[in-house]
């Protein structure tokens, strides 16, 4: 009896309280907010870690961006906005960056977030003993002595980062890097609490032990099932945070995820391949597709042990010209992707896509030119070229490969053998140049063209084509220190389009189903898709 009275009282209290909550409005936009502010989304796979210096996958980084906060964050459009850093200054030659940290930033255990926490984290990232797979990011950031520290030749204290005082962080670079601040949104640069790591070792990231400085705390983690994070009251901007709870559910099967989305269990899920056209018809308010900072391409083996015919630039050009990108994008993939004639996506910040000549031709012109080049190289339909194209096992890659092989066959008479390989086997084959043509994809680590173009540098570990061109190397090296590197990037793209060591095919699009009450706050214009739960909100329907 007592219980039911209590329950009734509680119920009426809640009923009274909810109109007040419902009356909540967004502090900036003034939109009416929903009562329930829980964001539930699907992830494909279990994340690798929530340790900022250890995490290496996209879904793990999404969680880390909620739990920790670095020097800078990104806004809805991908622009830098203050995180723990309020501002920064740099010297004239842009080799020393000094960040001023906010004084009200706190860890979840109440300690202040200091410059020392960043120094510790960055040293930890570079320390060989940490064995982070993102160790190399310190070199991308061009931090002084990163290489020597990583190889163990110098102590971690030699790394070019130091705390001037608790709220001033000074970073020294090997050489000028005008876009340095952009690199600080990467999760591997987020601060970590030394005292918690010292106390708990590898278990410090377990919900019971973890100390965070982000907008959310980790409250539950069941591997391969769910991860829950809830509002962190100690976060400096907690007052403006609207989403109370974020739940990520591991659902391996994308079609099942879509069914569960339709049943109302999820607020966001990926659109399964090929279903965007029908979903955008049936659920126009929810199906969304937007450009991503990623390129899909075929890499051609031009290494020393490559077959002779691939060393012939005419063959490479012909193969590229004969691919009808419009058909691949509009008919095969149908998910909002854009055709690619150059490597760097047009969505990249401060980058104008150069018009390489073949991008302006009609497909008929391209095919004609391709056939002419091929016969110049000594191949035609009576003496066809035999090529093997490898791709990692996936329905989408298979579809593209079949389409491309048909295009090559029709336009050039090329006989293509398609070969799919299991992922790691594929990476091994491609990495050891035991292939002729291989599927490849690349997503930018930061929003600047060099994250793509560095791949065609002769020394790059990701240059699976083993393409080497001194002029390209020189242009890219100079670009690092230029205030406006666009002319160099344009030149590099033109050289690639002429030499064709890689065949750009399309630029990726992200396509999601997002609930109508949430979609307004989703950062669709952030091409890196670095989203922060603290900036999301659900509006009242």
């Amino acid at each position, binding site marked *: 009896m007592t219980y039911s009275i209590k329950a009734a009282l509680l119920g009426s209290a809640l009923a009274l309280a909810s109109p007040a909550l419902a009356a909540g409005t967004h502090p900036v936009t003034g939109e009416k907010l929903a009562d329930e502010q829980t964001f539930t989304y699907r992830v494909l796979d279990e994340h690798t870690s929530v340790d900022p210096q250890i995490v290496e996958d996209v879904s793990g980084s999404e969680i880390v961006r909620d739990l920790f906060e670095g020097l800078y964050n990104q806004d809805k459009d991908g622009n830098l906005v203050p995180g723990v850093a309020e501002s920064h200054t740099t010297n004239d030659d842009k080799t020393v960056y000094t960040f001023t940290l906010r004084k009200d930033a706190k860890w979840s255990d109440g300690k202040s977030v200091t410059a020392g926490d960043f120094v510790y984290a960055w040293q930890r990232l570079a320390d060989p003993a940490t064995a982070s*797979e993102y160790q190399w990011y310190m*070199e991308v950031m061009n931090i002084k002595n990163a290489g020597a520290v*990583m190889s163990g030749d110098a102590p971690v204290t030699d790394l070019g980062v130091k705390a001037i005082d608790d709220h001033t962080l000074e970073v020294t670079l090997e050489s000028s890097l005008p876009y340095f601040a952009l690199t600080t949104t990467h999760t591997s640069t987020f601060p970590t609490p030394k005292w918690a790591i010292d106390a708990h070792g590898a278990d410090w990231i*377990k919900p019971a032990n973890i100390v965070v400085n982000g907008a959310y705390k980790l409250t539950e983690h069941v591997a391969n*099932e769910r991860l829950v994070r809830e509002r962190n009251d100690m976060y400096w901007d907690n007052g403006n945070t609207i989403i109370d709870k974020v739940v990520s559910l*591991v659902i391996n099967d994308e079609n099942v995820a879509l069914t569960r989305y339709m*049943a109302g*269990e999820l607020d966001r899920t990926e659109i399964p391949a090929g279903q965007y056209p029908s979903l955008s018809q049936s659920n126009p308010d929810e199906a969304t597709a937007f450009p991503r900072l990623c390129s899909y391409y075929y890499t051609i083996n031009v290494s020393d042990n490559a077959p002779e015919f691939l060393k012939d630039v005419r063959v490479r050009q012909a193969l590229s010209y004969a691919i009808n990108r419009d058909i691949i994008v509009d008919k095969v993939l149908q998910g909002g992707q854009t055709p690619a004639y150059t490597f760097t996506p047009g969505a990249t910040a401060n980058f104008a896509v150069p018009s390489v000549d073949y991008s302006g031709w009609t497909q008929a012109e391209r095919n004609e030119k391709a056939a002419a080049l091929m016969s110049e190289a000594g191949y035609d339909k009576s003496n066809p070229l035999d090529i093997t194209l490898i791709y990692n096992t996936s329905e989408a890659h298979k579809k593209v490969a079949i389409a491309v092989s048909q295009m090559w066959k029709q336009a050039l008479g090329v006989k293509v053998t398609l070969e799919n390989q299991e992922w790691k086997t594929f990476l091994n084959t491609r990495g050891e140049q035991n292939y002729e043509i291989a599927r490849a*994809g690349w997503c930018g680590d930061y929003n600047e063209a060099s994250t793509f173009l560095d791949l065609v540098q002769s020394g790059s570990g990701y240059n699976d084509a083993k393409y080497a061109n001194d002029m390209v190397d020189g242009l890219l090296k100079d670009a690092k220190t230029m205030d406006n590197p666009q002319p160099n990037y344009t030149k590099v793209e033109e050289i690639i389009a002429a030499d064709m060591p890689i065949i750009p095919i399309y630029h990726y699009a992200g396509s999601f189903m997002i609930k109508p009450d949430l979609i307004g706050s989703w950062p669709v214009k952030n091409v890196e898709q670095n989203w922060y739960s603290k900036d999301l909100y659900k509006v009242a329907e």
Partner: protein
Amino acid sequence: MVAALLHGDKMFNFILRRIAVAIPTLIILLIASFWLMQTAPGGPFTSERPLPAQVLANIEAKYGLDQPIYKQLWDYVVGIVTQFDFGPSYKYKDRSVNDIIAQGFPVTLTYGVISFVLAIIVGGILGMAAAIRQNSWLDYFAVGVTIGAQVLPNFVMAPILILIFTLWLGWLPGGGWNGGQWENIIMPVIALSTSYMASIARLTRSSMLEVLRSNFIRTARAKGLPDRTIIFRHALKPALLPVISYLGPAFVGMVTGSFIIDAIFGTGGIGYFYVNSAFNRDYAVMMGLTILLGSMTILFNMVVDILYAWIDPKIRL
């Protein structure tokens, strides 16, 4: 009394013998899977972004992967024997293989055991009923249902279940485990047990039919024994023999986890980890789970043999 002791002694010897064989079997399994894993191209740290040589060297040093293969295997075995430590996961870096088993195995065991019990009960009853009422509508129904259930693979059935019970009817959550709530268990159990259920029903039916036609049953009928006595006292035991030999592998199959169930329902069991560890070249996870599942297979085959001998005294252990 003497006979019972003698039997107990025999049983003890049998178990001892089986364990003596199990240990070398496990060792061979361990070496074979370790060797196969190492021969597969690529390693745990092969990725779309090849690591710089220095970074890779640091990581391999941390995990002892820079040691010769035999030393890696030896260290691994020593770790298990001395500390019951199955090593770290190279992929999921914030947990060890022990963590993965501790969390995933209870999940798998729960839905596996429930599926097993359900498959035996429903399958057994359906099979017996069909045999006793052979060529009746009940028989046709049972045969029809079991054939249907057997040809419908669980990767087809699971999404259909979600479609019906989650999207259309809204009765059950479409996946997850939620600490083992009954709503979350129902669909995985149905998807996992159905084909086993069908096999058990068909096995029970055919074996029961065979027994019912045998001479000793005919004699029992001639003596005028009631049907119930004939079936439960005389026919059931011999009819169950072929079913029991099927139950061992079936039980192992169900409790060692199902990749499909874990992948589709997001239950968090070890089946998904096991298959993915091979794709990820997550050596320690794969070895740990191989040892666990290998031991269980050996154990349950032994249990089946013992059951067999108990039911049929003609069989010597």
